[in-house]
């Protein structure tokens, strides 16, 4: 093996340590580090501090303990939005994984016109959540969308009015969200499937194992890292889901399809409830950490153990 140039250089000049490339790399990282510490961790701390005050329009520092949290937890809309986050999170991530993986397998089986299908499923991804929301709002609106169209065709009892029903509106978010993101998941899974050693397929054919069992018991466990990537990406999208709700349902009817991110933005910007908004943001952060960190920890430990 050829020795990398910088290692060779270091051996020749052991005293000129400040010139070492990894040193300069570290220096170059300092701005990014500062930005991360200040803008990320710094503002998390600041948000927490604000949540302990009675700030309304402007940040003020008269502390009231956990008063804002008490108000938050007494708020019906907050609990609805947290419950919605759980429902939406499960449906959206689950839907993206299952449908995305399914599509990837179908394409991997060698359908004709693979390129066409890939493009078709990836297309929605090029649209923003706002556009996605507006399109689906039209499609699902009972008086001008799908329901009306089907009724006009003659099936007059056809009903698809989830978007105007308080008990169903949250599911419309998952429909629109999955429609948009499933292409990305499919692409990731497809990339994973293409990396599978062809010899595995040859061996399984020799052994006469049915295709579905190969996918279920051999390929899927091999795709663990891809599942992990998809899960993390989709979780991030769920947590910050804001624009989709705004465009699709506006949180309604009532506040039945509200999500915590929208609750927080609404209270900080529209209602001058800076303190309560900050409390909401902090609770959201803690919830997310509580749910996601065990999984990340588990996965990373396993990955490290495998080496």
């Amino acid at each position, binding site marked *: 093996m050829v020795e990398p140039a910088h290692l060779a250089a270091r051996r020749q000049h052991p005293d000129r340590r400040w010139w070492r490339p990894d040193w300069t790399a570290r220096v170059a990282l300092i701005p990014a580090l500062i930005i991360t510490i200040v803008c990320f961790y710094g503002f998390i701390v600041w948000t927490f501090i604000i949540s302990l005050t009675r700030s309304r329009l402007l940040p003020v520092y008269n502390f009231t303990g956990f008063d804002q949290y008490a108000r938050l937890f007494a708020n019906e809309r907050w609990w609805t939005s947290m419950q919605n986050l759980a429902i939406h999170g499960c449906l959206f991530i689950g839907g993206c994984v299952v449908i995305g993986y399914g599509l990837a397998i179908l394409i991997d089986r060698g359908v004709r016109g693979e390129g066409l299908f890939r493009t078709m499923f990836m297309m929605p991804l090029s649209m923003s959540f706002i556009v996605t929301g507006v399109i689906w709002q039209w499609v699902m609106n009972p008086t001008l969308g799908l329901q009306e169209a089907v009724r006009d065709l003659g099936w007059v009892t056809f009903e698809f009015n989830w978007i105007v029903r308080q008990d169903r509106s949250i599911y419309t978010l998952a429909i629109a969200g999955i429609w948009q993101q499933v292409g990305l998941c499919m692409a990731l899974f497809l990339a994973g499937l293409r990396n599978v050693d062809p010899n595995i397929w040859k061996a399984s054919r020799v052994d006469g194992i049915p295709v579905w069992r190969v996918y279920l018991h051999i390929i899927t466990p091999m795709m663990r890292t891809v599942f992990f990537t998809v899960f993390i990406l989709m979780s991030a999208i769920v947590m910050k889901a804001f624009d989709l709700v705004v465009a699709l349902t*506006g949180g309604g*009817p009532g506040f039945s399809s509200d999500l915590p991110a929208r609750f927080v933005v609404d209270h900080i910007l529209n209602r001058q409830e800076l303190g309560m908004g900050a409390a909401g943001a902090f609770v959201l952060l803690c919830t997310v950490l509580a749910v996601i960190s065990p999984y990340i920890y588990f996965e990373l430990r396993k990955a490290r153990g495998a080496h």
Partner: protein
Amino acid sequence: MTRFTKVAGLTALLLAGASASSLNAQTAEVLHWWTSGGEQAAIAEIRKGYEARGGEWIDTPIAGGSAARAAAVNRMLGGDPATVFQFAIGEQLRELADQGLLADVENVAAGQGWDDKLPPLIMQAAKHDGKYIAAPINIHGENWMFYNGAALEKAGVSVPKSWPEFIETAQKLQDAGIIPIGLGGQPWQERILFNSVMLGVAGRDFYARAYSTLDEDLLMSDTMLKVFETFAALKPFVDEGSPGRRWNEATAMMIDGRAAFHFMGDWAKGEIIAAGIEPGSSVGCVFAPAEDLAYIMTVDVFAFSNIDTDAARAAQEKMAGVMFDPDVQIAFNQKKGSIPARMDIPNDSFDDCAQYAIKTIQDPNTHLVSTGLFGVPSSVSGAIDDTISNFWNSADMTPEQGRDSFRQAIANAK
């Protein structure tokens, strides 16, 4: 010419130029959220008035009320405030004043006699420590009931005078295949309907007391239960597509006769005029059914940043003067669809609906606040919208539960 005179002459010229420009440079940056066609035409009237008096206007429009308010506050905190900015009067503006971020325009107000010319409710809301911190330019009314005359005729009904009558009328309209209420299904629009019902069922004194005191006994009273019962009785008269609908789509439904009634603020007149109809003709405007004559008011104001330069102060005072000028208020409000904030302006140049509103508000007892932007703290305002919208869209909440969640949300937000 000696060198000295040359230099002296040049200096004098420069000085003269400098002082002239500092006299004339009443440059005002105006931050506002009026970006739609009719709104732009309206604010252009203020601009015209300001420029006619020698001021220079820098326009900073930001779409969306809450985005514009946030931008105004952020710029103030960042040390680069807009000279004049549109805002909502009430608690938020007082909070800015408490922090010393606002300038007052008391000199101009005293000179023009604002105290005698503004409705008392608006006068109080525009003051902080006895000084005016905001210049009110107009009054919008929110308890209007617009109706399509042809649709009513088709069903053989007339304009109802009370809520029980309204429900009977609505039933007949529905039987005739007309949507009785064209309702935009966003929380604030549902709240406008609710407040009109509350005024009609509970009366204006109750309305005024309930929203000014937010008293728990009033909110839990039998009267309030009746309000919720009446409100709930209206649910069947709205079409399925209402949730999420924007207000102008709902106005359009009423204009083209798909819907008979439409409850909205007087800005809906803009849509009616744009459809080529004179408000008060085939599309009529009356107050929502109520025994007491009353006007639920919301008001547009401009506030002034605390900028400590003579030029900025001069610009702000000039602007306040322009905004209160009778001719500017007339021209502005005809474009905006509202009525002047000044009560002393002759009303013959306005449309029928506006003339009726101007006549109504001559009696101070008719003045009520909207809970939208200035009547109650914004946290309470939001809580009201939340619970009203939740109740309206719920399939199984009883009026008792509605009243209870209303009281609780207000108590929690206070």
